[in-house]
């Protein structure tokens, strides 16, 4: 299967980060990595990512706070939270910061992959919808212009 989404994996645990990156690359995604919040914010400023996988505990920032920062750089980026510390408080915080999904470590890669594909599909559909709106706008504007021009000439 060929996937062409761009994914940013943010985790200070090198093993998890690398394993996820390799597994996702094998699925056809373009994957970039960041080991802390600062690097993640810098990379999301410089590049476009469709989706970010964010670890809950990062050395310099809490994962939920990073979600808010990533929303500022790329508002439509889908975000998946990972945590090794399941609690209702964490889940509520993730929902409040608009995480699109919440996964517990150890991760079941097949389930994560299915979620990523679903989120990217939703993103694609949303983009197609906005493009349709834009095409409608262009068509309407051109018709108005042509009508006005023909009245004046």
């Amino acid at each position, binding site marked *: 299967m060929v996937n062409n989404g761009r994914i940013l994996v943010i985790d200070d645990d090198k093993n998890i980060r690398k394993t996820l990156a390799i597994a996702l690359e094998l699925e056809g995604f373009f994957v970039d990595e960041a080991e802390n919040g600062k690097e993640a914010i810098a990379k999301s400023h410089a590049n476009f990512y469709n989706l970010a996988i964010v670890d809950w505990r990062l050395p310099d920032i809490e994962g939920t706070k990073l979600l808010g920062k990533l929303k500022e750089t790329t508002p439509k980026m889908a975000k998946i939270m990972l945590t090794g510390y399941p609690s209702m408080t964490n889940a509520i915080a993730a929902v409040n910061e608009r995480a699109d999904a919440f996964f517990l470590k150890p991760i079941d890669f097949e389930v994560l992959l299915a979620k990523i594909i679903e989120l990217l599909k939703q993103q694609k559909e949303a*983009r197609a919808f*906005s*493009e349709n709106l*834009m*095409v409608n706008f*262009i068509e309407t*504007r*051109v018709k108005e*212009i042509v009508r006005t021009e023909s009245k004046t000439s």
Partner: protein
Amino acid sequence: MSEIINDEIVCDIIDKGLSALGESPKQAIWYYLEKDFKINRYHLLENLDAIEKAFQMIFGLGYSFLEGLFRQQLHEITGEDLQGYESFADCVRSLRMKTELVEHSVDPCFSQQTVE
């Protein structure tokens, strides 16, 4: 400045700029430019003002976003500072004049006649 600004380059710049709107809106714009504004995408140099006017009519103030993208593309190709020009059409015209001047100026290295 290495590139000579021609129809193909201007078309490419505008095409890349319009890509920011998405593939379908881009195709729609090229279609209506040709159909209703009689602007041929392969002869843009002679229609620079007409295409800007068409964009302004379609997008209103929103055209400034697209114009910024066109200027950015032009800057990437030519490396020229494009501040101070009133419009994208002015930028293109001015850069074309510059390249034409450079092309027609006599380079002292090549001005000596070769002795056979």
